[in-house]
């Protein structure tokens, strides 16, 4: 049972991790605490159902279309809503994302209704027996996808010009501007990457938690808790935090009481903030600068 709980914890944790990465990327390039990050994924999940069931597209066509749509959604939110107020203080930016959050929740509920919907899965749901432990294919599937997306992001940020430029803007936007890097375009790209990640998260998480306008609310809060582990700055910190939360809440739910599952993440953040308010991992370097 321990093995199963840990594995399924890593599986959900890896989706928290992807969301947390998007949160960190947007925050460190734009000072924006993006409350709508979860809803980008929610929109992706609804679109996924629409493409699969209504239009009868194949699973992979659906993935492609959903990710393209949420990427554009991220870009559109930056361009239409965030860019005009980009120079405002963080509270204004944050408030604007609350607006986006409610707009997306409302519009999706209006179009597709507020009841929860099941999302068709793309794998055999029978668990496989791995040395006595029953392993759900869904968990392995999600971990596999999350790893693949992680590798793509790693490649993008370390081996492409625009990816490196995005990190340069994080590092010193003023000097990036001086070097001729189009900072506004890079910020738009950052929101695009956040949408790109959300598209995958939406499709991967939908079979686990069902699809509804509010489906991502709890996930988003946990992703934020994870991001705070890395001081809202370190991607490595956010990923480690997310996996810890995923595993810890599963263990708490499995061994103590299932009603404690959600509280676990918050107990962790309260303890973390009490002892290390600057985050747990990877922020020391920034302090030195």
């Amino acid at each position, binding site marked *: 049972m321990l093995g199963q709980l840990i594995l399924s914890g890593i599986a959900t944790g890896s989706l928290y991790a992807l969301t947390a990465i998007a949160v960190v990327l947007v925050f460190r390039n734009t000072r924006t605490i993006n409350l709508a990050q979860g809803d980008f994924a929610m929109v992706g999940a609804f679109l996924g159902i629409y493409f699969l069931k209504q239009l009868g597209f194949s699973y992979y066509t659906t993935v492609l279309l959903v990710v393209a749509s949420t990427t554009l959604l991220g870009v559109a939110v930056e361009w239409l809503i965030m860019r005009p107020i980009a120079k405002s203080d963080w509270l204004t930016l944050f408030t604007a994302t609350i607006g986006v959050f409610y707009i997306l929740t409302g519009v999706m509920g209006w179009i597709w209704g507020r009841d929860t919907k099941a999302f068709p899965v793309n794998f055999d749901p029978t668990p496989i027996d791995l040395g006595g432990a029953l392993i759900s294919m869904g968990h392995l599937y999600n971990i596999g996808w999350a790893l693949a997306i992680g590798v793509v992001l790693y490649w993008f940020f370390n081996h492409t010009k625009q990816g490196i430029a995005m990190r340069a803007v994080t590092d010193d936007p003023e000097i990036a501007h001086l*070097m001729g890097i189009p900072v506004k375009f890079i910020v738009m790209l950052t929101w695009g990457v956040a949408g790109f990640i959300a598209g995958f998260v939406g499709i991967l998480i939908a079979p686990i938690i069902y699809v509804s306008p509010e489906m991502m609310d709890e996930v988003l809060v946990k992703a934020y808790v994870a991001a705070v582990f890395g001081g809202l700055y370190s991607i490595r910190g956010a990923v480690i935090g997310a996996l810890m939360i995923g595993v810890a809440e599963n263990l708490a739910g499995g061994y103590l009481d299932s009603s404690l599952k959600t509280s676990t993440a918050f107990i962790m953040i309260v303890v973390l903030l009490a002892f290390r308010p600057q985050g747990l991992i990877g922020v020391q370097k920034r302090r030195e600068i």
Partner: protein
Amino acid sequence: MTLLKINQMEASYGAITALRGISIEVPERSIVTLLGANGAGKSTTLKCISGVVAPRSGSIEWQGKEIAGRSPNWVTRNGIAQVPEGRRIFKDLTVSENLIMGAYTRKNKDEINEDLEQVLELFPLLKERSSQLGGSLSGGEQQMLAIGRGLMARPVLLMLDEPSLGLAPIVISDIFEKLLKLNEERGLALLIVEQNMKLALKVSHYGYVMQLGQVMVEGTAEELREDKKVYESYLGAPEKSP
């Protein structure tokens, strides 16, 4: 021929006037220095040229073309690169990533790789550390990286803001030796802002002494070395013996 010709340029930050009509020229293949105490307007002058600050009035002619108010992206693409004050390298990027960012505005990959090789040849220390993070370098190495990053734009004019600031004398002379070499061998024009007057006048051909947003004195390096007024405007009092 004149590369850069600034005429009666004024600039201000809100209500504070930083430049009160300065005129400066940088001829081709020359080394020109802007001297002066803190707050004289030297850095603002560079910022106006690089496009970070738009001048309020006056003109900036680059290779015969008016460029005042152009974006840093345009300016970088058209042959002017800057090494900012305090190095300001990207600390969380590796040495080679820093250099690649200097060439952001360029498209030709072969040429960029060629220049990367050249820069690493010019600064062998950077070659050894090419996969290290910029923030892990020493001050002198960071300055070399900042210069290398500027060179990656393949500039005709390289502007340097206080390149000697906070560096050990031996490192300073090493860096200036490299700059002179670039000037002599490749004809790279240099516009150097320096507080270290002796050093600046030793390497440059021509100099402008600024005070409170105006050019007080200008002349060849030799003339300025002999001019008592230079020391006065600089330190507020004549220096006893040069």
